[in-house]
């Protein structure tokens, strides 16, 4: 082995020893410890290693997947009343990803519908041009042609038959700015109070229930209460399917606090019932008996909070006279568990157990939706549900609250709060109250007396008025009554008679069959606006996409219509931001006060809850307790909505006014939703994956009912009611209670509402979709 050594020394560091005197090529090798060259080599090696490592890191950074979205935007889900915050990932002007917004109330959770929002704006079947029906067929037209025709027909009707011959039928899915504008346009502009909409079919009873009980609409509590409740009393609701992120929060609460009890009251063994600790299945239509019977146990067994009741609650008999505790006791005598057990179909012991659970646990939260609202006694059910909380003092503490769930994303903010129903004016004002009318005439700058003093027509009356010609023109926006109205056959005929303008995003809806003019609307993030969901939470949705073709936002359409009707001065706010400014300032004259919610704040916040009177107010999760800006100083609880600052209990007796079950119509049909499909399926049923995975319209019934009828799974049955008949396949299932049929209403080619009764609650005018007496027979093929 040889080693070479340079002739000249490069030992600058003085590390090398002197050369061996004996002199020999090899001798010069060993004495040097580290030469200058070695140092250089070492340095180079270190440098290369660092460089290599750095380069390797660079490669890894470049390789690390970033996800396809280039930009993310905060928004809100298009669908239900949960109003989930979403984050939308966009690239090249398309929404390509969606995630739950971690900072929104839904804590990052969505359902399958929300998870598929990416495809929503790309669905086939969008309307891209206005259409006018000519010779029986809808044909393309220009905006000018279509709008001129609409204005002409509306003007003609008003001229010939007065302003009440025109009507607006709106939606809990329009933005607040849009519903507010339509309401103002019709009531203060055209002079017609015929402003109603699909929330009448969905939550009118809840709104009336709150208003009667607290003097103000909208719930006292919030979703946040879920994190504190120990008993969940879920009645007439199926949140595991219809409000999935809400139910996920409930399950989360139970996982963290295993003492939590989930009670589900439903005549079907729904997915919610499957998860519940206690499922009780009353006979459909009888659950007011259950609520009063629980009240009976609460009062007679000493579970009531007498101090709370005497301090904060007043009671009324059904005739409006004041009632005292003795009257309550006498009223409840008729509802002893043993007396109602049989009619209710629930054992008396179970009722006692529920009452005790409800009253004695630290915090009880009740949740309900269409099962209580869509009922002939919907208002009584709602006031009584609230009454249980008042009797037990299960209100005004974290986790102790009644909370009605809602079906549409903006029925609360858009319709209830703006007063876009036939009997309402903004922020809880009533048409029938002269002072309220005068106030709104002043705010809107219209002459005194412009707003008609009588309420307009509620949904059912409105369609009946089209039937007999009292209403000649209908502006139907963002809703599908051609599929969603009960006793549909009757109202299909009514729609044929009137001049119907349908504003929708999609073509070929069940309603467009009856349209004389169809106007293409932008949907969801193709326009800007504010949604207000269940818990008084307002959230801004920004415009992120362009609408297809010639489609315009509903606000633009309303503004154009106002101009053509000669009301440009009244409808002076033309953009969502301008309308919001007007509406926000208006709210400061009410207990809804959200004037602190500027557009900028809404852009930043993940929703704000009213009351929120100033720009530095954080918003109000729970009403009527300290923290709510309207609660008087020093009060633990203050029901300020009523003149005497007391919440009210109404002693409304149970009366069986449901569609009668008899020998001819021995079974009860109840309708509802499934998780994947939303309402009439206009959007969800166009999504291929959902359409393929969900069954087409069918009836579900239990084996005990199927066998005597000779029905087996997959057979076809003809279901007949006093209103109509429908044939469809049968699914034998363990879900519905004996004597009960279930059908979902999303299938546009199987209109189950043709069978459903149009009986309604006498006060809220909300139809009863839950109890239709039917006759079932097997179809022999």
């Amino acid at each position, binding site marked *: 082995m040889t080693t070479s050594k340079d002739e000249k020394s490069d030992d600058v560091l003085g590390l090398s020893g002197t050369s061996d005197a004996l002199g020999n090529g090899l001798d010069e090798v060993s004495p040097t410890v580290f030469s200058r060259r070695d140092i250089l080599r070492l340095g180079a090696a270190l440098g290369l290693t660092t460089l290599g490592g750095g380069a390797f890191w660079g490669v890894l950074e470049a390789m690390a997947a970033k996800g396809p979205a280039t930009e993310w935007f905060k928004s809100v889900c298009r669908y239900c009343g949960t109003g989930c915050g979403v984050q939308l990932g966009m690239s090249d002007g398309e929404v390509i990803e969606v995630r739950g917004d971690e900072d929104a109330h839904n804590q990052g959770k969505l359902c399958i519908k929300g998870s598929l929002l990416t495809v929503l704006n790309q669905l086939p079947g969008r309307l891209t041009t206005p259409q006018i029906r000519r010779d029986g067929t809808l044909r393309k037209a220009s905006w000018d042609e279509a709008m001129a025709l609409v204005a002409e027909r509306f003007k003609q009707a008003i001229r010939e038959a007065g302003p009440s011959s025109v009507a607006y039928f709106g939606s809990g899915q329009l933005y607040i700015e849009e519903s507010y504008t339509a309401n103002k346009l019709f009531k203060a502009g055209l002079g017609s109070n015929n402003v109603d909409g699909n929330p009448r079919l969905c939550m009118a009873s809840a709104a009336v229930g709150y208003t009667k009980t607290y003097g103000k609409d909208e719930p006292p509590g919030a979703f946040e209460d879920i994190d504190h409740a120990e008993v969940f009393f879920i009645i007439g609701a199926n949140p595991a399917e219809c409000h999935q992120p809400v139910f996920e929060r409930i399950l989360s609460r139970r996982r963290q606090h295993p003492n939590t009890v989930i009670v589900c009251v439903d005549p079907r063994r729904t997915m919610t019932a499957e998860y519940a600790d206690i499922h009780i299945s009353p006979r459909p239509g009888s659950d007011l008996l259950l609520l009063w019977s629980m009240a009976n146990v609460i009062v007679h067994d000493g579970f009531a909070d007498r101090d709370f009741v005497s301090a904060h609650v007043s009671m009324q008999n059904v005739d409006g006279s004041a009632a005292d505790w003795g009257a309550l006791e006498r009223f409840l005598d008729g509802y002893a568990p043993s007396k109602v057990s049989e009619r209710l179909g629930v054992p008396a012991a179970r009722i006692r157990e529920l009452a005790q659970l409800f009253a004695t646990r630290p915090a009880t939260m009740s949740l309900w939706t269409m099962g209580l609202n869509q009922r002939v006694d919907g208002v009584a059910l709602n006031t009584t549900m609230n009454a249980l909380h008042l009797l037990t003092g299960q209100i005004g503490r974290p986790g102790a609250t009644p909370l009605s769930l809602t079906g549409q994303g903006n029925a609360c903010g858009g319709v209830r709060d703006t007063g876009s129903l036939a009997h309402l004016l903004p922020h809880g004002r009533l048409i029938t109250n002269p002072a309220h009318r005068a106030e709104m005439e002043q705010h809107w700058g219209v002459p005194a007396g412009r707003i008609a003093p009588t309420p307009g027509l509620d949904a059912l009356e409105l369609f009946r008025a089209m039937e007999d010609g009292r209403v000649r023109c209908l502006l139907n926006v963002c809703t599908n009554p051609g599929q969603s109205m009960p006793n549909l056959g009757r109202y299909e005929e009514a729609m044929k008679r009137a001049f119907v303008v349908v504003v929708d995003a999609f073509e070929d809806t069940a309603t467009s069959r009856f349209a004389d003019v169809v106007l293409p609307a932008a949907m969801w993030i193709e326009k800007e606006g504010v949604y207000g969901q269940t818990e008084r939470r307002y959230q801004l949705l920004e415009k992120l996409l362009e609408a297809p073709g010639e489609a315009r936002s509903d606000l633009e359409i309303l503004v154009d219509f106002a101009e053509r009707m000669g009301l440009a001065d009244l409808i002076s706010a033309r953009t969502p931001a301008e309308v919001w400014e007007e509406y926000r300032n208006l709210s400061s004259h009410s207990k809804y006060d959200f004037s602190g919610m500027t557009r900028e704040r809404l852009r930043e916040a993940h929703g704000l809850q009213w009351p929120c009177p100033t720009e530095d107010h954080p918003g109000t999760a729970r009403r009527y307790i300290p923290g709510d800006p309207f609660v008087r100083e020093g009060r633990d609880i203050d029901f300020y909505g009523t003149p005497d600052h007391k919440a009210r209990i109404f002693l409304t007796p149970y009366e069986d006014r449901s569609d009668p079950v008899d020998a001819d119509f021995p079974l009860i049909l109840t309708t509802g939703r499934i998780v994947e499909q939303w309402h009439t399926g206009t959007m969800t049923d166009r999504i291929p*994956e959902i359409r393929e995975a969900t069954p087409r319209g069918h009836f579900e019934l239990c084996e005990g009912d199927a066998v005597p009828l000779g029905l087996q799974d997959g057979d076809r049955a003809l279901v007949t009611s006093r209103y109509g008949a429908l044939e469809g396949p049968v699914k034998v299932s363990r879900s519905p209670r004996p004597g009960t049929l279930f059908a979902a209403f999303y299938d546009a080619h199987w209109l189950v509402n043709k069978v459903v009764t149009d009986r309604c609650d006498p006060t809220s005018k909300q139809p009863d979709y839950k109890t239709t007496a039917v006759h079932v027979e097997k179809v022999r093929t």
Partner: protein
Amino acid sequence: MSLLSFLTAALAALTLVGCLYLYFHDLRKLRPGKLTYLGLVTVPSLAIYKLIGLVTIGGLPVAVLATANMEILEGAKSVESCSGCHVMQPMVTDMMDPTSDSLAARHYRAPAMQDHQCYTCHAGYGFGGALAAKLEGYRHLVRYTTGLYTEPIRIRSHFDAKSCLSCHDGTAPYEEIRSHAIAGERLSDGRMSCTNCHGMAHPSRTQRTPGSADYERLMTGRVE
């Protein structure tokens, strides 16, 4: 100290000794014909030198690399390794919090997941997944040591739903939910996330932002 790290240290020390031997050896003693007596046999001195050279330069470093990597890569699977960088502490605090309902905490409590809880979900399956996870870990390490990060950290790409599906797919509770059939392909190709419906895996970015109400608790690992 694990056996592997002891072995690594021993082998590394041996390499060093070998290097020193090679460097300081008196090369005059390697003249051809010079022999070394090893007790039983006598061999050429040069052959011994070459053998030691071969082992020191060619063999030992490879062995050290192998054992060290095995040690590091095995060790990197541990929760302790992940929480070594303090930006990961909030995830670990939350995961070990018995009252937390995050997906991480719920899986941590599940009997099916006894150790390597971070790694189990964050490494893809098979060699490719493991390699990708290690490379990602290396990337994290560089960023952490060079300070090239800001709190709250956020996952750079998408969490791979296959990590969820490899356990849950095919089980009855998974299969009987119709929404899973709808989500199916979108989950596998990353267009949809399991967390869309099933909640947050870890504390939110807001909670992990310095100054937030939860930040202190999450960073100090104090479980209330």
